[in-house]
């Protein structure tokens, strides 16, 4: 096995261990405890939290910012795709050529979306004021890795470059806000549970 693959495997192990640490820490804290009398349906609300509540029909942060929301969706689809591609690269499974080009196309689009989000962060004053170096670094790393993955799939770069880029990104994930890979799901769960307990979610059908 090539040295760069070994390095990326090491980085993957560190990243996974860190994510698992965060995940199991949350599991250890257990389900939310509430002594009040439950009014609603927490199961239905958690489901709603991951579905209806995220839709641009309901979420103001989505429907008031449709271009950013769409770019964000694309960007995250691309990110998950890079993870799948990376994991499959480590196996003997290879994609049909046509699929490789479809993936590359999606990744280019998502990387362009990521670039757009980065530009917005730099240009919009209120976002700039809110941001810290981690915000820029995280975006640049993920966006670059999407471009690099697309180039790898189309044979435009060396494998070594790809694996080293993967290793750097994997090592950075536990450092900053990219940890929301774990926390996003936990936050939606917690919020769904909270609103479900109190009967606010799912919202009344009359709403």
């Amino acid at each position, binding site marked *: 096995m090539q040295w760069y693959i070994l390095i990326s495997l090491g980085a993957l192990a560190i990243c996974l261990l860190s994510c698992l640490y965060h995940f199991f820490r949350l599991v250890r804290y257990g389900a939310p405890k509430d002594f*009040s009398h439950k009014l609603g349906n927490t199961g239905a609300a958690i489901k709603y939290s991951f579905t209806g509540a995220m839709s641009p029909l309901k979420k*103001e*942060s989505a429907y008031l910012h449709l271009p950013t929301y769409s770019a964000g969706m694309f960007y995250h689809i691309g990110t998950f795709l890079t993870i799948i591609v990376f994991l499959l690269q480590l196996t003997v499974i290879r994609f049909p050529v046509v699929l490789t080009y479809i993936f590359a196309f999606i990744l280019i689009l998502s990387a362009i979306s990521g670039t757009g989000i980065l530009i917005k962060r730099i240009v919009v004053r209120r976002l700039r004021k*809110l941001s810290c170096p981690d915000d820029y670094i995280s975006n640049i790393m993920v966006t670059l890795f999407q471009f690099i993955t697309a180039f790898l799939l189309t044979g435009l770069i060396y494998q070594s470059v790809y694996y080293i880029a993967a290793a750097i990104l994997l090592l950075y994930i536990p*450092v900053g806000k990219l940890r929301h890979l774990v926390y996003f799901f936990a936050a939606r769960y917690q919020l769904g549970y909270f609103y479900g307990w109190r009967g*606010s979610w799912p919202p009344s059908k009359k709403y």
Partner: protein
Amino acid sequence: MVINDNKEKALSILSRGDGKLQVHLNSCVRCGLCAESCIFYLSTGEERYIPARKVDLVSSVYRRYNTITGKLVPGLVKARELDEVTVMEMVDLLYGSCTMCGRCTAHCSVGVDISYLVRVGRAMLAEMGKVPSTLQSTVDAAIRTGNNMGIPVDELIDTLEWLEEDLQDDVGDSSAAIPVNKSNVSILYTLNPREPKFFPLSISAMAKIFYAAGESWTLSTKMYDVTNYAYYSGNLNEAREIARRLRDVMYELNARTCVLAECGHGSRSFRWEGPNYLQSSYSFETITSVELISRYLKEGRIRLDKSLNKERVTLHDPCNLVRSGGIFEEQRFILENAVSDFVEMNPYGYDNYCCGGGGGQLAMSEYGDRRLKAGELKVKQIKNTGAIIVVTPCHNCVDQLMQLNQVYKMNVKIKTLAEVVADALIL
């Protein structure tokens, strides 16, 4: 401003082994998409009022003391010391520019419970003795006298006695009563101290509804205050003490149901937060008066003639009752039966804008101008409905709306739900 010895205690709040806390402290991605959800940002356009800035204040302190990156390279993740500058900013933003309405929470792109983190930040400030003195004095009055306005028991009894006489005249029945300190009743009813002090007619309205429903109920002179401003100040011990008193009166009087007066944060703090403050479930039922009136209507215990309320009515949904309390259909069902012309605001219900009076803002006079400015959005909403009457099941909201009415010359009447129901009662 000097950071006192309790800084360590304040910081220990952030390292609590609590899943909800740890999740929300770690989840914000600083996308800034919550900006337009907040009345303070929308009404002023000031960047510092963006909800994410309030989240960041608390979570940046968390990062500084609880994450490896924050300890080693604080600049990378904007990890902040809990120093005087941070504390001053926390006081201004967490107390002075947030009503804890939770509108941003419901719309956050990730699902960060922003208002919960504001409350965590306030709890830290309370540990350091940084609660604004105006808000603290309201809590102190409640702890010292049993109600946040410091109304003496004699004064309360006097008020209730003349209200009882009025009720008897109104319903034409000399046995109609406002019972006090009766045990083994179905309902212990609570009051917002603003009622006996400034708005006694809302007590009459509720008493008339109880009379029409033939209810077995009582008030307690020992503990009738539904409010709990310690929920807003962030002082957990004081919040627990206030909740404990009301719970204990329920047990002493052996009442079956505690009915919470029209007060958003009061309902929230006793029904939802109280059992958690006390770490035990209540063995009695706790509902809001909104749910009770709706129940009476559904069970046919009261009948209404909506032609008695002809003017156009709109509804202001108190954030703590709707978004954080799940009471959405009941007030609408009541109004459909109590008034002839009901029109919703836009947005309404779970999405309704806060009036600006929540979060203890009404008690903190130092932020009064900001509060009235934040209410501008509500004024526009109300004006757009063309309503003559604004109904809201919350005395805090009533107070803020009355002030907005005066400042922005809305020319509307502000009423509680019980008042419009009492006006439409068929006896």
